[in-house]
């Protein structure tokens, strides 16, 4: 590998904001950070910010099983273009990522990918909520993040056991909070819009009841845990109080939950169908505030590709989920009121710690660290177009929207995988 110099940019990480060039050595680590550095291939960064590569805690790569929607390769291309140097693959594949063999397959497929592909594994076999997966065995293969994403673990006792067992292994239990008895048969947020549109709804309380229970179980077991894609004001308030009370609880929120509301469903376009559903304006604002104050430490994408035909089904029947990797940065830049360092923390440092990969991801940008970097131009404007995205699917809810802020270069383990907005392989 050749030496690189990222020249003329402004470095932003946990150490602060400063004008600096960054030299990446042939071994893929950062060789120097300072002014007026030279050596090797030049990545021009004038007018850009140089930040630790982003980390997505919530990526549906669809492989194995749903390769018509995405593969690990195409998903990693989308990630690299979005400035991500690491993604955590969700386990709701076919088959479920719940055994050593599927974990090995995913990690193997992830090796040639354009970013680091970590995989989560399910908490329960087949995400059925009945029996725990072999967490110890899977953790020895490198899995640090367990979730039944797509469903919450409904059984109180099993959830308690999962927390206790995972704590002993030092791995993270992450919950998709949804009490299915309340949400079942609902396809959007239950409220004014669902009532008017005649679409069966699922109430905010379906999420909040599970947040409430899991906070209690975290207190009971002393185990840390993570809440995925929080979407309601009530959830945020409970998590804030629990954290203030000293519980080891972290949370993520998706870009769509701080940018869109249930009003978008009035178009009946299933591109706006997602779980948890788009909520009200009050919830949207609360999520943004929680990201600002740090109650929610991570911005996640819940990147969920679906083939065109699947998103042309009736709203009730279409699968939930929307693309996110290639649009997260501009939305976080323009739709949240965050300081630059906070933004980088939510996109990179926070999620890296939660995923347990902060040894190589999430910054800071210092000599000796692995060179996982994102270089973005905060002023570059462009128009979102699903068909032009690297993802195999096109189901972006931001189709046609003008966005400000775009990734210019992405460096993964010292390799420039994106240069001037173009994938390099």
């Amino acid at each position, binding site marked *: 590998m050749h030496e690189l110099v990222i020249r003329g940019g402004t470095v932003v990480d946990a150490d602060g904001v400063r004008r600096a060039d960054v030299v990446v050595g042939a071994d893929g680590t950062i060789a120097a950070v300072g002014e007026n550095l030279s050596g090797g291939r030049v990545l021009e960064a004038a007018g850009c910010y140089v930040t630790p590569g982003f980390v997505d805690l919530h990526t549906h790569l669809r492989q194995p099983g749903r390769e018509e929607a995405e593969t690990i390769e195409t998903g990693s291309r989308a990630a690299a273009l979005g400035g991500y140097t690491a993604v955590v693959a969700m386990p709701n594949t076919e088959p479920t990522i719940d055994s050593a063999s599927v974990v090995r397959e995913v990690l193997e497929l992830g090796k040639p990918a354009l970013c680091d592909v970590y995989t989560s594994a399910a908490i329960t076999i087949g995400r059925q909520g009945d029996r725990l997966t072999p967490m110890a065995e899977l953790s020895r293969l490198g899995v640090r993040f367990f979730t039944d994403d797509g469903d919450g673990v409904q059984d109180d006792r099993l959830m308690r056991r999962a927390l206790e067992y995972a704590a002993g292994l030092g791995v993270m239990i992450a919950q998709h909070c949804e009490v299915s008895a309340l949400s079942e048969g609902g396809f959007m947020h*239950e*409220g*004014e819009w*669902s*009532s*008017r*549109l*005649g*679409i*069966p*709804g699922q*109430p905010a309380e379906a999420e909040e009841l599970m947040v409430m229970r899991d906070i209690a179980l975290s207190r009971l077991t002393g185990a840390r845990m993570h809440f995925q894609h929080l979407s309601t004001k009530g959830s945020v308030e409970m998590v804030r109080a629990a954290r203030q009370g000293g519980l080891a609880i972290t949370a993520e929120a998706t870009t769509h939950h701080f940018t869109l509301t249930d009003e978008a469903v009035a*178009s*009946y*376009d299933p591109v706006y169908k997602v779980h948890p559903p788009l909520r009200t304006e009050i919830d949207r604002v609360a999520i943004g505030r929680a990201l600002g104050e740090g109650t929610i430490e991570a911005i996640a994408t819940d990147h969920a590709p679906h083939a065109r*035909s699947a998103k*042309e*089904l*009736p*709203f*009730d*029947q279409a699968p939930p989920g929307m693309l996110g990797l290639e649009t997260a940065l501009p939305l976080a830049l323009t739709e949240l009121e965050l300081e630059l360092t906070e933004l980088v923390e939510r996109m990179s440092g926070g999620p890296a710690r939660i995923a347990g990969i902060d040894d190589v991801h999430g910054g800071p940008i210092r000599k000796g660290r692995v060179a996982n970097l994102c270089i973005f131009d905060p002023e570059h404007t462009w128009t979102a177009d699903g068909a032009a995205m690297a993802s195999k699917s096109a189901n972006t809810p931001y189709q046609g929207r003008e966005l400000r802020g775009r990734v210019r270069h992405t460096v993964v383990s010292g390799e420039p995988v994106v240069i001037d907005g173009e994938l390099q392989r």
Partner: protein
Amino acid sequence: MKHLLSIADLGADGIADLLTLTDSFVEISSRSIPKVPVLRGKTVASLFFEDSTRTRLSFETAARRLSADVISFSVSTSSLNKGESVRDTVETIEAMGVDALVVRHGCAGVPQQITSWFEGSVINAGDGWHEHPTQALLDTYTIRQHRGSLRGLRVLIVGDVKHSRVARSNMEAFTMLGASVTLVAPGTLLPPNTKSWPVETSHDLDACLGDADIVYLLRMQQERQEDALVPSLREYATDFGLDRGRMARLSPDALVMHPGPMNRGVEIAADVVEDPRCVVIDQVRNGVPVRMAVLFLLLGSNSHLAEAHSGEPDETGRPKGSRIDA
């Protein structure tokens, strides 16, 4: 106007115009040969993903009386076909050369989705719990026939409002034309949030009945009992069913309406159906001319209608009403 997806597409003036237009088609329907060639050469396809013999027959009869060609598609709702692509079906029909699609689907929003895949007009014949605009139009027409106008009338819509597309369309149409609407149902059968709706809500039918001008009963389905939305149909009938006792408290010029099919003994007692204030059969009768008016509005031109009325020969040189299509 290209499509009829919801009552809001028409607006108050649009509804009034359509009801006036309906008068012409009521007159045409009373002729010995109730047929006019105003949509000759046009093709109307009915695309029903959910069974509804009445609505389908009503639309198809309306189209034939306007001399349109009619294609009838029935898509089975068996679980096998559940994931079938609506778009494929629509594009297949479009390739056959169709000017209007009459769509019924069990999921809200499907007619609206279809508008992006189909060049012609789309008419919503009922989508999930969302809307059933032609039902609201024929109901509105029926009320106007009996009471002259809806302005100032007090309407009760009673029963399973939550799952009812009829209730949503009627609530919209009735209030647009100046009626005041109260939704009357147990808490489980009202939509979760009606704050922005221009209606009152009540859980007490007896408290509302005295000064009601229209009692609009909704069909109460067996499955609501199975889903624990009501403890039993019997209890529902006791509190919300329209029986002879409640009928006696209604004013003499009140109207009782129902979109059909009726569950006698649940939402409506059998002898209430026989009461002259029950105008269910008028609703059915008005369905055809109202749907003729809708089809004409979307597909026809005014010069055609003027011809149909003047009794002058159409472009084939034959007098109106003399054609019978094959």
